[in-house]
């Protein structure tokens, strides 16, 4: 299943990169403003679904580079990895750890295990939806 309209093709090519960037933006700002891994993952999935509608599932697989179900595994792995710092320092599971990296000027880059965890959520959500969509699209081909 893929559409052959010029409008959708052009729009998809323009919108998808923007939407992906927006999803990453949502992911990173999630801790302070509306957003987060779940919403970010959904937006990213929306971008890929749009692309899939325009160019078909084969092309979407290529642009994703990894199999959707590997995204699932990667997401769960990220979430598990985020528990390791707490584990090593002998704290209860999923205790948050924060590291602040100084940047030029007066800014700090805040890195944390919740962020790693959120990236895991992002990848899992994206992987789930892409597994659904791509396989459903391919099942009738």
């Amino acid at each position, binding site marked *: 299943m893929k559409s052959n309209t010029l409008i959708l093709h052009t729009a998809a090519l323009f919108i998808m990169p923007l939407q992906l960037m927006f999803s990453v933006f949502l992911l990173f700002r999630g801790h302070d403003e509306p957003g987060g891994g779940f919403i970010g993952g959904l937006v990213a999935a929306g971008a890929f679904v749009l692309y899939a509608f325009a160019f078909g599932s084969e092309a979407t697989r290529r642009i994703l580079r990894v199999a959707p179900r590997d995204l699932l595994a990667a997401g*769960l792995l990220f979430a598990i990895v985020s528990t390791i710092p707490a584990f090593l320092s002998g704290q209860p599971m999923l205790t948050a750890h924060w590291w602040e990296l100084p940047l030029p000027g007066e800014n700090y880059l805040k890195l944390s295990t919740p962020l790693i*965890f959120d990236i895991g*959520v992002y990848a899992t959500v994206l992987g789930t939806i892409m597994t659904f969509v791509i396989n459903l699209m391919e099942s009738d081909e």
Partner: protein
Amino acid sequence: MLLAVLSGFLLAIVAPALHRISGRYIGWVLAILPASLTVYFASLIPDVRANGSLVLEYAWMPGLDISLNFLVDGLSLVFALLISGIGTFILIYAGAYLAGHKYLARFFVIMLSFMASMLGLVLSDNLITLFVFWELTSITSYMLIGFNHEDMEARKCALQGLFVTVAGGLALMAGLVLLAIMSGSYSLSEILASDMALHEHAFYTAAVICILAGTFTKSAQVPFHFWLPNAMAAPTPVSAFLHSATMVKAGIYLMARLNPSLGEGELWSQALMLFGAATMFTGAYLAFSSTGIKKVLAYSTIMALGTLTILIGVGTELALTAFICFLVAHSLYKGALFMIAGALDHETGTKDISRMGGLRKSMPATAVIACLAALSLAGLPPVFGFIAKELLLESLLEAPFWSVGLTVAAVASAVLIVGVAGLVAIKPFFGSTANTPKTPHEAPFGMLVGPGVLSLIALLFGLAPFLPEGALLQTAVGSVNGSPVETHLALWHGVNVPLVLSMGSLALGLSLLAGWRRIQPTLYAINTSGARFGPEAGYFRLMEGITIVAAWQTRVLQNGVLGLYLLLLVAVTFGLTGYTLLTKQGITLALDLTDSHFYEWGIALLLLAAAVFASATHSRLGSVASMGVLGFGVALTFILFSAPDLGITQLLVETLTVILLVLVLFKLPEFVNLSSPFERYRDLAVAAFAGIVMTLLILASLDVQYFETISSYYVENSGPLGHGRNIVNVILVDFRALDTLGEIFVLSLAALGVLSMIKLKAEDQHKP
């Protein structure tokens, strides 16, 4: 300690890579880990002897009272040493036995995980963690037994072992929870330290039955013994490990561990003695009447497990000393004998004892080791097995009750076991040379070092029993007893009743052995015809029954009519909710609409219109689209009432749902109306009922507050504790991250479920 337990899992992860690097020396390389663990555990001995027990703490999920605390005392240390010590030799042995096997790397992955689970089991202080490791051993042993997964028989046996042990595991979990309720703690060290009279508690009987159901299935007690001989489908190194130090000993460990707390009740000791005695005798008898060398050994393990159970049940200081000695002796000789059996199988090409003979000429080293190990099995001097057996008989003679019956059973088993030892050590190696499928020659060094060292240790312990006694055994007996015990192990006790009984059983056993060739076929025939009424037949009937019930309930409940599922779900959910609402709360109809805005009314009307359209339309696409409108309306409501995160999520989920539904709709046939008017009115009634209950529920929730709201806690603490201003996100990834972790696992499982459904469907269609 945490690292000691988890290192097996970590090594399992890198084992395949190591296999590629080290090639045929993989067994030796991997054995470094259990060897160093043995040294580490041995280094804890002085500390444990001085303090009685050590508790190493690590709070894992304190909110759920689940910790990764480790309890190290005499008993757990004996087990840890056996697991890691014998594990070392098993890995070396497996490297040689399975050399060149195409799944060797996979074998080591499972084996190491199994070993680590077993270590976790015997070292856990927390009941929940103990249970998790317990189930891990069931799962990993399932994969080990079914390792030759292309063999139908192996798969069946593995599944049988899994079903039996996991069914027991479920009972065990209930028992452990009851135990925790009774004693008020999930920590073993606290339970053992408290001097509460647990056997007077109302839950005592239930807890003991549940826990014993778990330990009896795991430790293959009659009538659950049938899974163990079938587990022989596993490669020999697995059998050697499973039987000597792990898996079946897990149940024994737990009984010994809980003996100080639960052992005061009569139910406990009587059940253990009764089932133990039945198991001991059945095992010895079946061992003597089998021909396959691994079967013989497997049944003799059952006999040993029965003996250990009896000794815990008797529970006197002498009996517990005998328990620890028998445990160590059995682990040493059984590990050795299984490895020998594997070597024989490997070199001669047959497992049938009656087809072996005169092998001492071609396999002299194997013969010497086998004889040494068999001495221990038969309980003859000068090896450690002799001391254990003397103690066993002595403690049964002095048992507080049922002493005569137990002694008779033990002597009868001893007679048979002497015969069994002869079968294993004399029959294959002496007498005239028999023709075997392969021309036999000496087993490789890797396959002999394990049994050799284990047999020598048994000999050393026999000649100098004060060495293990002083080091650890006395402390171990103390931890099974609950208070320190003075033990006096010696090879020579003088001429006394146990010695006379031993000698008598030796003579009888040897004469039985002489007639084995004549008796065995008769016994075998009796066993085969009796098996129709045995517990294994019961197991198969039960499994058939379950399949029939499952098929029936699937036909009735899971009949594929989605409308019916939905109807039942909605009716039951809202029926129960409505009932609770009416009885607990009553109906509130007050609703204040004075400060509502016109746009809120607009959204409400939009929602209503969309809902009506969705249920009335004949076009699938139309109803999906109007469902989308419904969702967007709800999202709008979220945004109006300042819940932007929810709003955005709802918006995105709605969009994607519509897309997914459209994708599925393409595959559906034309819309036809299949339901009768009656069915449609019934559905309407249920839907209206659900709507009314929901409305009443919301109205009620407006002016009732049962609990103080916790949102203020999150509002106040998300900044200082969670370093974030977006409360929703801080809750998701920090405060309640464990929930989120569970949710993303569920999400992934759902994705995999859908994936397999689509793929399976596609494959079906490709078939002609």
